[in-house]
């Protein structure tokens, strides 16, 4: 029989029993300013997650990653697969941003903004609390033999968990499939859209498993960001910490000669990953601030100043001078700004249309006694929903160069592409050697033109 309460230490993971089995922590209820703020942030984030696909911008949802048509709508911007190079700067920018935030504020992302924590703390743990009661009641239910009451409670809990997992899976799916289409899928038979159905079922099953059973194990063992944090923080990082000098030695309130910590273990009881924050910053800490609220509450009761456990740097907690600006902050800020700058520049390079000109396969040029000709395939691609007309012209071309295949204007269907063969022809006496010139496609609706340089080739003299 595994223990129902454990005393955390620094050398092993509390949520894994010595025999390898899982220890389920039952974090106690906690009230306070950080808990309230975190709940508000959580509800706001859930609202944002759910609503983003419902908000239309420029005729498309604010976020729609239409994988089927390889069109990615992001806040009014439409990106195609051709623009995927931007992803590099998005990922590196977000990565360095996380570096920056972590070295400044520790795992604030994990405790406050990570969707995993948001759904776990503000949806699933709330349901559990509502059905099974507070921490002692839950521990009692765990230990109780299986009977009608336990089956009813557990059954209802897991039914609601499954329903929420399905709901979140569908919210996730609405980022990839437009809502009307998703609704039609949901009304139709599963066999009609077997792949999507299998995908959403697997996704819901994974969510159910994670939030219903796996929980903090993901944050402790699997999440790569959690693993990275020890390399990103230093003595000046604001983390949640225990003021050792003020708290120790621990002892009863009424006895003299003790520090401020009364060893009530409230901070351990409320911890969702079952660590003792008084042992210092640990790998398992997701920075949820529950222990701060718990300790502040106790300190109020024993009429001692708040902040025995608080947001502070290691240096601050040990009474040294706090530094905010330090080399790694400067480096991470520079890298983050670099990523953001390149991404911004990249976004200005994304046009509503694309043009490519490639030499046709086969002979690089065709020469007959009178003329030299080059063949090119012109491809125009429009990302918008309406047809676009283009005027295609040449720049820096020598006089006498004629292009066949270009009408007055070229019309590209909305969201489609047009491929056109161009025949460039030059009279033989005019040709003095290979030369480069520019082909320009100007949309007739006044948007800025696209230019491509091509080279005209011919025989040696």
């Amino acid at each position, binding site marked *: 029989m595994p223990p129902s309460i454990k005393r955390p230490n620094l050398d092993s993971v509390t949520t*894994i029993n010595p025999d390898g089995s899982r220890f389920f922590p039952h974090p106690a209820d906690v009230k306070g300013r950080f808990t309230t703020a975190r709940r508000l942030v959580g509800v706001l984030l859930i609202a944002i997650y759910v609503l983003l696909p419902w908000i239309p911008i420029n005729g498309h949802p604010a976020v729609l990653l239409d994988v089927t048509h390889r069109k990615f709508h992001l806040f009014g911007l439409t990106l195609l697969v051709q623009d995927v190079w931007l992803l590099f700067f998005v990922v590196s920018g977000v990565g360095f941003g996380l570096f920056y935030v972590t070295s400044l504020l520790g795992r604030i992302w994990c405790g406050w903004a990570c969707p995993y924590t948001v759904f776990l703390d503000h949806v699933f743990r709330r349901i559990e609390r509502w059905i099974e009661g507070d921490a002692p009641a839950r521990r009692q239910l765990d230990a109780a033999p299986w009977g009608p009451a336990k089956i009813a409670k557990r059954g209802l809990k897991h039914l609601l968990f499954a329903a929420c997992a399905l709901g979140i899976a569908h919210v996730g799916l609405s980022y990839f499939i437009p809502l009307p289409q998703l609704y039609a899928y949901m009304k139709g038979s599963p066999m009609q859209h077997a792949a999507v159905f299998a995908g959403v079922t697997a996704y819901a099953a994974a969510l159910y498993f994670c939030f219903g059973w796996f929980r903090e194990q993901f944050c402790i063992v699997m999440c790569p960001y959690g693993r990275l944090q020890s390399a990103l923080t230093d*003595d000046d990082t604001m983390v949640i910490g225990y003021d050792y000098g003020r708290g120790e030695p621990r002892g009863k309130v009424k006895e003299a000669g003790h520090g401020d910590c009364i060893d009530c273990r409230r901070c351990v009881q409320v911890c969702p990953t079952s660590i003792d924050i008084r042992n210092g910053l640990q790998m398992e800490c997701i920075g949820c601030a529950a222990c701060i609220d718990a300790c502040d509450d106790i300190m109020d009761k024993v009429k001692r100043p708040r902040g025995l456990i608080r947001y502070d740097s290691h240096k601050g907690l040990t009474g040294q001078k706090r530094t905010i600006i330090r080399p790694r902050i400067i480096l991470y800020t520079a890298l983050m700004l670099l990523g953001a700058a390149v991404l911004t520049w990249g976004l200005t390079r994304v046009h509503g249309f694309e043009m490519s000109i490639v030499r046709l396969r086969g002979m690089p040029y065709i020469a007959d006694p009178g003329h030299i000709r080059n063949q090119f395939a012109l491809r125009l691609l429009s990302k918008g929903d309406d047809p676009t007309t283009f005027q295609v012209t040449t720049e820096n071309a020598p006089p006498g160069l004629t292009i066949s295949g270009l009408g007055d204007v070229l019309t590209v269907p909305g969201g489609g592409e047009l491929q056109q063969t161009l025949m460039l022809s030059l009279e033989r006496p005019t040709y003095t050697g290979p030369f480069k010139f520019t082909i320009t496609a100007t949309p007739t609706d006044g948007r800025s033109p696209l230019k491509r340089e091509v080279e005209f080739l011919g025989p040696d003299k």
Partner: protein
Amino acid sequence: MSDSTPSTPTPAPRPTGDEPVLRSHVFDGIQEFDQRLPNWWLMTFYFAIVWFVLYWTLYYQGGFFSNDQDRVTTELKAIQEVKNKELEKMLATLDNKVLWTWSQDPVIKNEGHAIYTRICSACHAADLSAKLGGAPLPGLPLNDQEWKYGNQPMDVFRMVGKGSPDKTQAIQMPPWEAVLSPSEIAKVSAFVMSHHTPPVAAN
């Protein structure tokens, strides 16, 4: 840059009685804890072994599942079959008379014109004269009365699909059936023939 280990470590926490067992073995002053892996972690490991055995047996040895190459080949074959079927169906209904009628149909003519502009006008010129600014283009003029490879609509249809029958020339018309569908070829042929007068018998 400061080290990730705190420079002034917090005093060692007091023992709780739940500490893991330390193995007696010492090497260079380093000792090991005797801790078990999480059971769920071990399950993923065993699952990976079972998966490997099944996958290796069924996929690599049993050949129960088609590989990517086979799937691509099958898919391409299916596409070709659809095309062949369409061509067959087209050819069953298509003859010179039908194409002459099509050449007078404004809708078909327009569709054919769009294809002509896109594909053919580079060599045959927008006005079918195969001349651009007086200079000859590689294609043959299609608006005169001289026909090198047959003057019937079906001759044009075959020519567009299969390319020039004279494979000896350096510059020759490529076969377009890989790019255009049979109905597109028929429409562009009808557009070309719309520049010519149908024989009286067809009217």
